[in-house]
């Protein structure tokens, strides 16, 4: 097996390699230094953070992480966010899968219009819709409610999930389902017994992306939640800034933990995240 990549590498001069690693190194440094510095700061004492002395923690302490839970009660907000992201992802996936299948397989009046509408929503700057969404959510009695947030997040992740799943189904041959239907299987039986298992890889990719999106969501949480006990982690992070003086070690450690959730998900499910984003973008 000739791998052209290795051929290229062999031909590359030392000078080219220096350029390549120099360039990549500088970019990585610029992209990551502030984040790494803050993450390291979660092991620093309050004094060291306030004076800004030294890049590395000295003395080293884990008090910040203790504070994040005992004083800021981060776990409660993490549970909220887990609820929003978990159920929101399920809601988006379920509704999008159910809609993507008929819109990928059958032709009927209004199909193209529906597909275009659902896809167009991907291109909408949603912040422009803030006030109307607030109005609708309040009219439905879902303002400042956890179940309301789950529904809103399902809706917000619906267009992306739909577009990716439909594209996947379009690229999947329909023979198996047709066989099942000819054998007398009903619509939902076919959908859940035959199509769903085949769609699992695509569902996994969109699930990770949707989960991370909801975990990181700030704008609508800020718009639609007021109660302390309903807040998600991003609202708590944003709050840290205004009360910076109050518990800086807990805030920095808390922020680190909140960031680590999507980072770890990405590191574990790298293939799915990258594939899901690429697929969503290119549609």
């Amino acid at each position, binding site marked *: 097996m000739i791998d052209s990549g290795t*051929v290229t590498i062999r031909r590359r001069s030392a000078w080219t390699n220096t350029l390549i690693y120099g360039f990549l190194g500088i970019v990585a440094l610029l992209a990551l230094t502030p984040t790494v510095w*803050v993450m390291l700061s979660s092991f620093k004492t309050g004094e060291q953070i306030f004076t800004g002395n030294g890049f590395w923690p000295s003395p080293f302490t884990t008090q910040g992480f203790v504070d994040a839970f005992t004083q800021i009660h981060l776990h409660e907000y993490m549970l909220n966010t887990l609820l929003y992201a978990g159920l929101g992802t399920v809601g988006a996936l379920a509704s999008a899968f159910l809609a993507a299948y008929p819109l990928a397989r059958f032709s009927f009046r209004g199909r193209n219009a529906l597909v275009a509408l659902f896809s167009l929503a991907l291109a909408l700057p949603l912040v422009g819709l803030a*006030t*109307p969404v607030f*109005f609708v959510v309040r009219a439905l009695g879902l303002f400042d409610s956890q179940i309301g947030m789950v529904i809103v997040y399902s809706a917000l992740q619906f267009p992306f999930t*739909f577009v990716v799943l439909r594209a996947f189904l379009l690229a999947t041959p*329909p023979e198996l389902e047709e066989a099942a239907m000819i054998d007398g299987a009903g619509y*939902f039986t076919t959908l859940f017994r035959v199509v769903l298992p085949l769609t699992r890889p695509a569902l996994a990719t969109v699930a990770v992306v949707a989960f991370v999106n909801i975990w*990181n969501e700030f704008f609508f949480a800020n718009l639609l939640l007021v109660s302390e006990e309903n807040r998600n982690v991003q609202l708590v992070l944003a709050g840290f800034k205004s009360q910076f003086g109050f518990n800086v070690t807990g805030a920095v450690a808390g922020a680190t933990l909140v960031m680590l959730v999507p980072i770890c998900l990405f590191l574990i499910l790298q293939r799915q995240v990258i594939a899901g984003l690429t697929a969503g973008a290119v549609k």
Partner: protein
Amino acid sequence: MSAFTKHRPPRSASRKRRAAAAEPAGPGGQVRDGGRARRRNHRRPAKPVAGTRIPRGMRGPVAVSLLPGLLLFGTFFLVPVFVLVATAFARWGGLDFAWVGLDNYRQMFDDPVFFKAMVNTLFYAAASVFIQVPLGVGVGMVLALRPRGWKALRTIIFIPFVISGAAYALIFSMFYNPRAGLLNNALGALGLPGDRDWLFDTATARWAVAGTFVFVIGFVVVLVMAEIASIPTEMYEAASVDGASTWQQLTRITLPLLRNVIGTAILIRLLVDIGMFDLVYILTAGGPDDATATLALYAYRAYLNGEWGYANAVGSVIIVIGLVLIVTVRRTFRIGERAL
């Protein structure tokens, strides 16, 4: 199209690329890979859109199946868009309501803060288009050469992309902090003046905000790498035989073929920038003296003031700018007829 089925770029991709070239583009963009068919090429529509009628007796179930999506979409996209369009021409604070024609738009165009917010928003968009995207394209192209350790480097460079805006705001409020921030401390250590309040000095505020996101290039990088993986290797082999250098291969072969994906990256970034809110709201609240305020923040302030009709008029401007940018970029980069 379905790059997500088995996304396993370059290493084995070269094999697939050769196979792809050997049996040019079946309708499914399907590529033979050691006997296992695998869908890879994400650019080609996989199949003519299915044209089967709904089988007899399945109309009911199909309708039920569409229902949840329709409900979610109708409630949280369609209805809000209608409310937006209708109330943009009204004075509305939730309860009181009066048609005012184009008054909201007149007020907007008379407000210097609106123009500041507009200019700032376009400034951030320009920072994305002229710094972030080119940087991402460059890194993607270099990583696609597969230098030793490219996978680890891709992972590292991608990480900032999964960090939220709120977390970034916290990170950079510390990073730019005039006394304890890393930036000033590093400048001081280098013997440079290290006492500037980057975020709250009108001379630097916008650049400081742009500095938080222009290096978040992971998304562009993976898009570019996926695109390069679909370029037939023969082209590079032929170029190598003819004595083309790495640099020439990158600029003469790869770059022109990336037109489409660069357009897509710009498009996606512009949509994010047009609606830019989290970072600015948390970092500076639009200050100093609205030097960092964006259109989204401007609309949000109107909403907080109970001027909902006005907020919606601004919202409509945001959405229209978004649509205009989409059409322009698609034209400029001749992005295919795929719906976005």
